């Protein structure tokens, strides 16, 4: 019987053929990633790049803004000048764009050699789980990377080879820059920066009484709320407890009394009207721009705004860490590091790629970073220009030495970003009680941890 005589039959045959074509379960077979990782470690070695022959390194990064772009362009040029046999093919993408396309790129046949893979389970964790990134431990030993960074910083780029554990195990990337979420203040409106948390709250109250916006805050994009919340969380919770939570270690929970206290405080601030009015409908950029125009005495934001704020306000802007509950006690703050550079498993030239990453993070690179207005994450003798930048470098040194940094909460599980940002918006709008807030967030987290 001719298939062509029966169109429906032809369609059926076609459908079956297609279905059979995609018959395998997506993602292919589950190879032993641990064994592959071990082999990769054994074959890793420090080489003389000049003798490696003609090599092209494809690098995907998101260093596209201002000083970030300047530093990567300068370092790439310097690397190629030193090793004329190496060509760096740079693919620059925005942060969002990189995060959404990285998985497809890295799992494809023409995978780039070096990529910036965001910390945490949503991006780096999934790539490690799929065996798509190369463990860097052997390189770290050969190049002495452990001496460059504080342990808390390296831990953020660590996963066990099956990605079940985060914050320990193999090293999968190195970051160039540090980030702190701290408190910017308007020197004209805040002549005496507060020394304790209590004083800080008193100044908020005074600003409110004067009819001013105490804290410039725009939360339309949802993620800024994480920074406000964690800045308070750092005042109540132990850094280790927060780290254990983010790394999903045994027994960690979000529904802790400390987190509830933090939620209560931030909720109280919202109720008292310390924040920019209608903050949930105000954009992040308009909010900090209002701060530069004197609408807002404080701004809780990251060090990525240094250049913009200094440009707009000059000496009028100061930076400090959120003051601790007791005067003189070491401050604790939300902080971390920029997206780590990692080597893909499919790279043909991992040893050259490792030398490149080494070049991006050595002492010279630290000077280039400081020169271009960035905050170097590695230890460096570089002296930044400008009062604001020096404040920030000082704060960074304190935090890394004391290991008094808590990581971004959204590293915790693949879906945590969505859950925590929505919950914070609800909490601040008065739609969630603090206790319900911590419980809701914990419920979402438990779904992930129980799965194992």
């Amino acid at each position: 019987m001719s298939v062509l005589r029966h169109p429906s039959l032809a369609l059926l045959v076609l459908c079956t053929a297609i279905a059979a074509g995609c018959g395998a379960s997506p993602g292919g077979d589950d190879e032993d990633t641990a064994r592959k990782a071990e082999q990769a470690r054994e074959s890793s070695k420090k080489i003389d790049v000049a003798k490696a022959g003609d090599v092209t390194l494809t690098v995907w990064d998101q260093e596209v803004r201002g000083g970030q772009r300047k530093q990567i362009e300068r370092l790439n040029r310097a690397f190629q000048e030193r090793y004329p046999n190496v060509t760096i093919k740079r693919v620059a993408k925005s942060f969002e764009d990189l995060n959404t396309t990285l998985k497809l790129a890295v799992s494809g046949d023409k995978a780039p050699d070096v990529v910036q893979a965001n910390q945490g389970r949503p991006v780096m964790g999934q790539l490690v789980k799929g065996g798509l990134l190369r463990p860097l431990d052997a390189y770290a030993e050969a190049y002495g990377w452990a001496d460059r960074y504080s342990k808390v910083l390296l831990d953020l780029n660590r996963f066990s080879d099956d990605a079940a554990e985060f914050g320990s195990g193999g090293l999968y990337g190195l970051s160039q820059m540090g980030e702190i979420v701290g408190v910017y203040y308007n020197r004209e409106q805040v002549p005496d920066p507060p020394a304790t948390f209590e004083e800080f709250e008193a100044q908020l109250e005074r600003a409110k009484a004067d009819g001013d916006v105490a804290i410039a805050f725009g939360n339309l994009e949802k993620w800024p709320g994480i920074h406000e919340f964690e800045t308070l969380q750092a005042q109540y919770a132990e850094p280790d407890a927060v780290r254990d939570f983010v790394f999903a270690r045994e027994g960690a929970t979000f529904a802790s009394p400390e987190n509830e206290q933090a939620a209560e405080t931030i909720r109280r601030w919202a109720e008292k009207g310390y924040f920019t009015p209608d903050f949930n409908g105000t954009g992040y950029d308009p909010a900090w721009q209002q701060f530069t125009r004197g609408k807002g005495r404080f701004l809780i934001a990251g060090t990525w705004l240094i250049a913009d704020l200094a440009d707009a306000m000059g000496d009028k802007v100061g930076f400090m860490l959120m003051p601790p509950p007791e005067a003189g006690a070491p401050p604790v703050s939300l902080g971390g590091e920029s997206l780590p550079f990692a080597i893909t498993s499919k790279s043909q030239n991992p040893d050259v790629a490792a030398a490149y990453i080494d070049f991006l993070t050595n002492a010279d690179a630290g000077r280039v970073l400081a020169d271009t207005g960035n905050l170097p994450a590695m230890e460096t003798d570089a002296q930044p220009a400008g009062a604001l930048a020096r404040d920030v470098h000082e704060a960074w040194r304190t935090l890394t030495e004391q290991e008094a940094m808590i990581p971004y909460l959204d590293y915790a599980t693949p879906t945590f970003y969505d859950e925590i940002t929505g919950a914070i918006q609800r909490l601040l709008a008065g739609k969630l009680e603090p206790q319900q807030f911590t419980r809701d967030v914990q419920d979402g987290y438990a779904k992930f941890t129980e799965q194992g």
Partner: protein
Amino acid sequence: MSARAAPPGEPRRVAYLYLLPGLAVFAAFVLAPLLHTAWIALFEWDGVSAGEWVGLDNFGALVTEPELRSAFWHALVLLVFYAVLPVAIGLLLAAAMARTRVRGLTAFRTVLFLPQVIALVVVAVMWRMIYAPEGGLINEGLRAIGLGGLAQNWLGDFTLALPSVGLIATWVFYGLAMVLFTAGVQKIPPSLYDAARVDGAGPVREFFAVTLPGLRGEIAVALTLTTIAALRNFDIVYITTGGGPGDATTVPAFEVYERAFQSGRVGGAAAVGICLAAVIFALSLAINRFADRGLR
């Protein structure tokens, strides 16, 4: 089959051969991806490591997960703003233009149609600025005329955010509806209007007795286009609110993006996508059935 040639015009087997190129393209670019998506929807897959067979669980989640339920509910609410309101406004404008000779009609039509021409991303960025609580056009305008009390937290309020997002779409689509309808009105024979007037019909009666039935086909087209736009709406939500505050403005297409590209739940994303495609298909079918019945 006998070797005798069939009479001219009768279906012949060879005809299927002519369909083949079209079918091949359709199969490669529509059918295959669709089936592949349906297949992926049966797995729990993070997009990288091996997927795990979960059967119809991902489809079950469409009913059981409150997030997804509310996303589909929001899509239905947005239908009012994407489809019903633009069509209503378009009809009103078309009816008004049908009764009077407007000087410079083309210019008007062009201006009202302009929102259609602008990329949705640009529209969304612009409206985000218009809706800004501080310095936004709406709130500052209200304050300027002494109605500051009416100024709202348009995109940040849990109840206002969804209508605010919807109104952007109304602004975009009413021009499209109007252009379709004014063109349709011109092909209604003037004798019908004359007859209605002789029979003593007022403007309202005339609208319901002559204009509305005459525009049935155009209304179906407008409804189909706007309904599809409503259900696959992504860009406006992504740029204005990102689904917030809380999840007050999430829509299915946004959930697809979030699951597939952000949180590594590709199977779940595929299930939402398939379901969304099915809903769009069913609704367009219903709208066109309704239009066809009227024509007979």
